[in-house]
């Protein structure tokens, strides 16, 4: 499935811990992520999934632990020792972040084309025609019609907004994308289309993805590996099919068995 061959991990997470005062966000989480790999983090609400994701994506400094990322030049760098300028450049070139609520990740008062083109302009592209045709191309890839390019995302449906957000993130060909419940709040048929689209893009582009979801079906469809979190700890990790078909921990068993069978 993945096109990039590498023996070296893209992201290394060492004992990441985050406290909110006395309360626990996430505790002692360690894992490696390889290029082209999709990792799902599942668990119930309040289990620390989003805290962990925010720590990984430098949006929230962990209380303890280290996160290293392999930069494009091949060197491993500790994310929290980068300068703010380097972190920002990373966020808008090499990384993407797809929010659960598309309005958080989009500029709602500028057109769809400008939303997709913003990253290009941020990294120095100054040719209107090229920016526009790239934006148009990306809208096509996420199945938004060309004639919507000058419309505000406010006039888009929930599913379209989410797809626009994905296009906006992928336009600079990032290597790592973080997703926080990308299908949350969408109805089931729209979810299915979005998952299809995501699966295709991820495999076409060889993306590494860390996806947070409480929906095991999403994890099953998209991810190669899965981590089950509970009360801040990672209680079980492994290949997705293995964990979902044969969960070891009692809590994982509960989680898997609580899926409604239609």
């Amino acid at each position, binding site marked *: 499935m993945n096109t990039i061959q590498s023996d070296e991990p893209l992201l290394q997470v060492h004992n990441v811990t985050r406290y909110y005062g006395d309360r626990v966000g996430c505790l002692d989480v360690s894992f490696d992520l390889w290029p082209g790999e999709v990792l799902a983090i599942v668990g119930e609400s309040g289990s620390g999934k989003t805290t962990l994701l925010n720590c990984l994506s430098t949006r929230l400094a962990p209380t303890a632990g280290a996160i290293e990322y392999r930069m494009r030049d091949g060197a491993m760098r500790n994310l929290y020792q980068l300068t703010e300028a380097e972190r920002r450049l990373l966020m*808008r070139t090499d990384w993407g972040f797809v929010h659960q609520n598309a309005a958080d990740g989009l*500029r709602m008062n*500028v057109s769809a*084309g*400008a939303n997709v*083109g913003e990253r290009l*302009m941020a990294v120095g592209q*100054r040719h209107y025609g090229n920016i*526009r045709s790239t934006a148009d191309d990306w809208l096509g890839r996420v199945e938004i019609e060309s004639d919507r390019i000058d419309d505000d995302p406010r006039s888009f449906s929930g599913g379209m907004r989410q797809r626009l957000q994905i296009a906006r993130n992928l336009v600079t060909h990032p290597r790592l994308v973080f997703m926080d419940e990308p299908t949350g709040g969408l109805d089931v048929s729209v979810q299915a289309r979005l998952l299809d689209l995501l699966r295709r893009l991820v495999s076409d582009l060889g993306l590494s993805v860390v996806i947070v979801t409480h929906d095991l079906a999403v994890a099953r469809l998209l991810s190669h590996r899965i981590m089950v979190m509970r009360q801040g700890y990672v209680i079980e990790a492994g290949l997705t099919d293995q964990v979902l078909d044969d969960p070891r921990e009692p809590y994982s068993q509960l989680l898997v068995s609580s899926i409604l069978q239609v």
Partner: protein
Amino acid sequence: MNDTAQIYDQGEYNFAYLDEQTKRMIRRAILKGIAIPGYQVPFASREMPMPYGWGTGGVQVTAAVLGKDDCLKMIDQGSDDTTNAVSLRGFFEKTAGVRTTYETSEATVIQTRHRIPEKTLTEDQILVFQVPIPEPLRFLEPRETETRKMHALEDYGLMHVKLYEDIAKNGHIATTYAYPVKVNDRYVMDPSPTPKFDNPKIDEMAALQLYGAGREKRIYAIPPYTKVKSLDFEDYPFEVQKFDKPCALCGAENVYLDEVILDDRGGRMFVCSDSDHCEERRAQGHTGPMAANPAAAQITEKNQRETTR
């Protein structure tokens, strides 16, 4: 500027209204602004005896740089004799007692509201701008903490998003005033709401430019001979407004024109926005298509002489 500090009788204003400590504070901000062209320096803006929006920032900057021997010119939208210019000129006549003028070439300090004189400024002149909103990123990013960070990190992609939107919606860059510029290849700056027609004049200008925003408590500056580039796209380059007719009174071309409505049947004329420039040209004998016949002026004068007699 020690000559401004002196003992005053009770009830008299200190020179140029502000006390000397305040002027020192503002001068420090100005010096910092000059050292970092285009950077918005916060300063402790004072309450002035006029409402915000009347140029309290510009007035404070002018008060801080003004000396006894200076000659002051006040411009409001290019004109010397409209409300704002008249009031502020009166303010400094009263509180500083400096010489004032309408003539651009005679002035040493020019405070302006939204225009730059058509006549090329020289090295011994200071141009002070009144700025309502100094932050060029404000309408794109409402958080001040975030815009400061964006300036610090030179994260200016958002500015081009605005220009992109302009082209997408209007087919061309429709921003006509407060057109964003990049100063000295570093800071993106709002040149106050001057028409973009004036942007090329800011570039490599011989005079010192000071920008004061009173309500927003910011001062910024462009030292003489500094590179100032108007932002644009490669395929949509920056261009200034063009007027298809010359000034109706003095016949000047390649100047910024104001529209004057003449009646309620669509009658209008376009005249120089810079009133001093227009008058000077007319004095030199240039006339535009709608200028009054000089003979008419002579008749009026004759009539007046006869009535007074």
